[in-house]
């Protein structure tokens, strides 16, 4: 209850060394440690999902059997999707970086409910454990979308995989509630909504989606288990059910879920652009409002996944035009980021390199998404590699590059050490090249008509598949190099000062790494988080 100003925290140790026992990590309620544990867990998930992706690509070196059989292939692509979506993408930036940064950016001591935060991490571990052990029991072959009636009749271990995802959803809701309350109630006196750093807006919008959409995912997955295990037939036409309804409920969550993945990455980009351009954002409100706009309008577009599923033409038309509109918000963000660089003082560092990669890939990937809402084109592209390439452009080209940019940017904050610039830039170049070589051929494959989830493909598609596979090797080596260099820097990198990038954002106004209580003095809100036109008294 004592305000930190009178606290005896002066000269306190950083949160990393304040306590060093195992239990001081495992039973911590410190948001910074929980954030790091989330980052570590999601990193392991990404490695696992990445290895699976490499196997999938190698299998496609030849049109027929290469290294695995059809059944294994089908289980592996399901594994890849489930891991990358629920174990990596959804928690990585919000629960990892978001956990670490949100209270720091708000000048708070911790999140609103610290113990709920820790529980969320263990629920995540439990869900991950259930999902992965189910995968060891043979896994399931339904694809990460679990479409009924196939998922209700598949002889594979559908129920435990689905149960694991259900548990992961609970963890996601817990984090969402925590972040919403933190943003609302733990801002210091004098910090209005439009004084918050932009990353907080991204996390806030994400949390809204997590809280409102995830219960519907839980419901639809629970019903798949009931259909599968007890033949309830809520989605089984022979029992009067409707398989298209499953698609409705599933995408009511899973379409907004792509915004859960991309909005925090957009928040990272906003921070990095401003810091390394030493510039105020061209329009703070445009970025803040468009985050909310994406979150809200994004809820009403799910039906564009059902254009060829037998949905009514009226409903399709409505979903189509709403999908076109949601893209306007993303476009506003892109233009605002560009405008932020104008007349700035741009340092071409590794995080900034990832921003350039993000801008290019996100614009291209995003616009191919808008293109699908031009509905006759979706008829040709639906369920082909075009879709695969499109969402990998957003998820890998957007979220993953956003994450790597954020990790480079905040590494000094988290560990107090600087990343290696040269290795970082080489890795960024590898990621860009590998990415383009992997996924551009997949656009062409989709145009040519190669359906997704295809173990065995017509010979005429082989050349492009081989190029894509080679690209995946480049891409993975780039990602490994980036993370390897980050890990090395985290332990052996040169010491950074408290604010190595000269940023004005609030999280840099305390020591790097911060003390357990985050701030020794109440956060000084002057100058503002993006006020680069005045001299910073904190330097």
């Amino acid at each position, binding site marked *: 209850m004592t305000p930190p100003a009178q606290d005896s925290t002066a000269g306190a140790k950083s949160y990393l060394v304040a306590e060093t026992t195992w239990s001081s990590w495992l039973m911590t309620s410190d948001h910074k440690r929980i954030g790091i544990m989330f980052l570590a867990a999601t990193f392991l998930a990404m490695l696992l999902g990445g290895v699976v992706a490499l196997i999938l690509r190698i299998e496609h070196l030849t049109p027929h059997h290469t290294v695995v059989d059809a059944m294994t292939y089908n289980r592996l692509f399901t594994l890849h999707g489930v891991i990358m979506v629920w174990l990596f993408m959804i928690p990585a930036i919000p629960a990892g970086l978001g956990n670490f940064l949100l209270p720091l950016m708000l000048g708070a001591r911790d999140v609103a409910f610290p113990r709920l935060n820790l529980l969320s991490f263990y629920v995540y571990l439990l869900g991950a454990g259930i999902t992965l052990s189910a995968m060891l029991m043979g896994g399931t*072959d339904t694809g990460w979308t679990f479409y009924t009636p196939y998922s209700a009749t598949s002889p594979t271990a559908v129920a435990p995989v689905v149960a694991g995802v259900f548990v992961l959803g609970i963890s996601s809701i817990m984090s969402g509630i925590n972040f919403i309350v933190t943003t609302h109630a733990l801002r210091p006196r004098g910090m209005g909504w439009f004084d918050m750093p932009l990353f907080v807006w991204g996390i806030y919008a994400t949390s809204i989606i997590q809280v409102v959409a995830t219960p519907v995912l839980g419901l639809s997955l629970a019903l798949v288990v009931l259909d599968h295990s007890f033949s309830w037939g809520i989605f089984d036409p022979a029992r009067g059910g409707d398989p298209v309804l499953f698609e409705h409920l599933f995408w009511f969550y899973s379409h907004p879920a792509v915004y859960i993945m991309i909005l925090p990455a957009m928040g990272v980009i906003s921070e990095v652009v401003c810091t390394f351009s030493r510039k105020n954002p061209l329009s703070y409100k445009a970025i803040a409002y468009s985050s909310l706009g994406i979150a809200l309008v994004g809820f009403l577009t799910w039906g564009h996944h059902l254009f060829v599923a037998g949905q009514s033409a009226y409903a399709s038309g409505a979903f189509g035009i709403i999908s076109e509109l949601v893209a306007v918000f993303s476009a506003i963000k892109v233009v605002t980021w560009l405008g932020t660089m104008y007349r700035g003082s741009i340092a071409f560092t590794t995080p900034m390199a990832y921003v*350039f990669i993000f801008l290019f890939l996100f614009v291209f990937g995003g616009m191919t998404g808008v293109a699908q809402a031009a509905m006759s084109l979706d008829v040709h592209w639906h369920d082909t590699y075009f879709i695969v390439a499109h969402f990998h452009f957003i998820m890998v080209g957007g979220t993953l590059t956003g994450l790597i940019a954020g990790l480079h940017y905040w590494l000094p904050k988290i560990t107090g050490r600087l990343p290696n610039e040269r290795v970082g830039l080489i890795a960024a170049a590898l990621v860009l090249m590998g990415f383009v070589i992997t996924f551009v051929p997949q656009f062409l494959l989709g145009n040519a008509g190669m359906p997704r989830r295809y173990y065995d493909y017509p010979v005429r598609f082989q050349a492009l598949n081989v190029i894509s596979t080679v690209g995946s090797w480049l891409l993975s080596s780039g990602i490994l190099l980036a993370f390897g260099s980050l890990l090395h820097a985290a332990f052996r990198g040169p010491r950074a000062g408290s604010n190595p990038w000269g940023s004005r954002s609030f999280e840099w106004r305390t020591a790097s790494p911060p003390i357990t209580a985050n701030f020794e003095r109440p956060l000084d809100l002057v100058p503002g988080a993006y006020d680069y036109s005045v001299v910073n008294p904190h330097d």
Partner: protein
Amino acid sequence: MNDTLRGLLGLPEQASSVARDIDMLHLFVILTTLLGAACVGLVALWFAVRFRRRPGDQLTPRVQANPWWEAGLIGALTCLFVGWWVIGYRQYLHLQVPPIGAYEILVSAKQWMWSFAYPGGQRSLSMLVVPVGRPIKLVMMSRDVIHGFFVPAFRIKHDVVPGYVSVAWFQAEYAGTFQILCTQYCGTSHSTMRGEVVALAPADFALWLQGSRQPTRAAEAEEAAERQATTPGGDRLDISHLAIDGDPIDRGRRAAARHGCLSCHTEDGQRHIGPTWRGLYGSRVELADGRSLIADAEYLTRCMMDPLGNAVAGYQTVMPSYRGTLDPDDAASIVEFIKCLAMADAPAAVANPSLPTQPYRVGPP
């Protein structure tokens, strides 16, 4: 120009009446996309060079967006995207609504093969034979899980959802062989669930229909085809035979009797609990909900699956739904049976001149 860009984008040949229009939109959209991404990337790089950090840089001027510029940008982008949607939605509706009088073929999907039933009672497996230059309406049903019917060369695709009647249509522009792929993941051999559309000149098609009337041992042929269709590794299914299953009237009548249809529907024009089947096909029916439509294969199939939503005015709604209990092949043969009852005295042609009766007759036109 069209061909060069199509080649660059890897699009397949344009073998249907809609392909060219859809490709034009495709080219427009992709070129805009590429242009947008390139502009953003280049502007970002130019700024990175032009405004690079110089020694001594500490403060930057505060630049705020002009609200009018922002509004203009939002307006322009909205117009662009909505423009895409307007063109795309028009084409989509065109794809969704088959022309009246299209040649109806019943499609049955199951793990992992396609089978087709033609108006004259002919059937084929994994090979859809159609005449060139005439709209073909596919009335599709699935026996098990969701499948996706996709012909890249035609730019058409539709999911085949079990328990529902899914409809797609196309018109082949020239003779040739075009691949059918399954796009909705449907199990282990999803990727080998392929087939072919064989488009023939009208005269050839008529000959083919005639030839396929020769009685063969259908069951054996079907079995052989099934074996072949489920063998993974075959890059192109080579099923150049047809399975014919005797007299369609006979097969349909047996199925109708087995499912109890004939206890409510008569074959001789007598009104019973349900409408008579004589002369029903091709006639105009008034529905209880006020709609008025022509009883084609799609309507008849929908009736079996959802009798309540398609009840004919003046009859009690006592028919149970056969969704899930009637398999697509039986449904198809019952439809064929009802068709044959209509042709016996051909009231269809009188009732509805726009619905051609000719293709349903066997033999050259």
